[in-house]
């Protein structure tokens, strides 16, 4: 039951991902011109979505109890700081994650 539900979940995620990747080519792949509104969204939406995903990752922080979200905030600041300093994506991700793991396992 659980196994089947998991397989269905993977299938749905794969199918929707594929649909999203193929849709523009199926809809606009012919000779028709891409509508201006779609072109506009394609320019402005990515930044907004990424901001939304950052908030999504931090959605379960409780500032009033537990560690008050300090490990998350410190680690996010470390990721941003590392990235602005060294400009190395892997270093920023690995450094921030290791720091966060140390913070939640040892410090807080």
């Amino acid at each position, binding site marked *: 039951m*659980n196994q089947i*539900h*998991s397989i*269905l*979940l*993977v*299938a*749905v*995620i*794969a199918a*929707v*991902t594929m649909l*999203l*990747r*193929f849709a*523009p*080519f199926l809809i606009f792949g012919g000779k028709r011109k*891409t509508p201006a*509104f*779609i072109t*506009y*969204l*394609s*320019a*402005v*939406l*990515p*930044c*907004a*979505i*990424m*901001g*939304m*995903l*950052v*908030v*999504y*990752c*931090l*959605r*379960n922080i409780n500032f009033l109890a537990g560690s008050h979200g300090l*490990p*998350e905030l410190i*680690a*996010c600041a470390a*990721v*941003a700081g590392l*990235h*602005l300093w060294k400009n190395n*994506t*892997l270093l*920023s*991700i*690995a450094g*921030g*994650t290791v720091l*966060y*793991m140390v913070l*939640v*396992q040892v410090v807080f």
Partner: protein
Amino acid sequence: MKQTTHSPGSGRTLTYAFRQSLPVMAGYLVLGIGFGILLNAKGYGVGWAFLMSVLIFAGSMQYVAVGLLASGASLISAALMTVMVNARHLFYGISMIDRYRNTKPYRPYLIFALTDETYSLVCSGDVPEGVDQNRYFFYLSLLDHCYWITGSVLGALIGSLFTFDTAGIDFSMTALFVVVFLEQWRSTENHTSALIGVGASVLCLLLFGPSDFLIPAMLLITLLLTLLRGRLAQA
């Protein structure tokens, strides 16, 4: 001795694609290993890592998928979540229509494998003399796909062979999004869209709570961007 089985430049195309893909190799191995470890920590082993990386091949979504699997999310909410996390692919696709127009017979696979990283490589300039462009796109996509599968399977293996405290490993996903957010912030002059994304999401999080805020946030973001179109489209 003359080689007759390959079209001229085939080997050179592969070599060139391999060289260009090296930064992605490093990234995908590390992110893939992170994904594999995380997936394994939630009770899904090597087979699941392999299956997901072959069929889905979308980094951020696979990280999100671990949470969906572990919490036994409904199929509808998984579909909606996929639409939101991967909506950007619609826009990658729109900007690739011309570049991928005459790429038969590779076209279906190229479209399937159009990840953020492959997109950035395919977009970065023209290929040198003697390199078959369509075949180059194909090798790039295939190599990147292989790196991703290898990384995630390795991660699942590492996770199952060594027992260590994985508490906090989920943060690698947060870190990935923070880095991409920063990259986008630096590459744009007008930050209204990024601020709308954060602001609308925080507002909806406060109003609807952590488990229900994503859909309202997505709608609010689209609404605000549509209303501000006159101002933002000029910038």
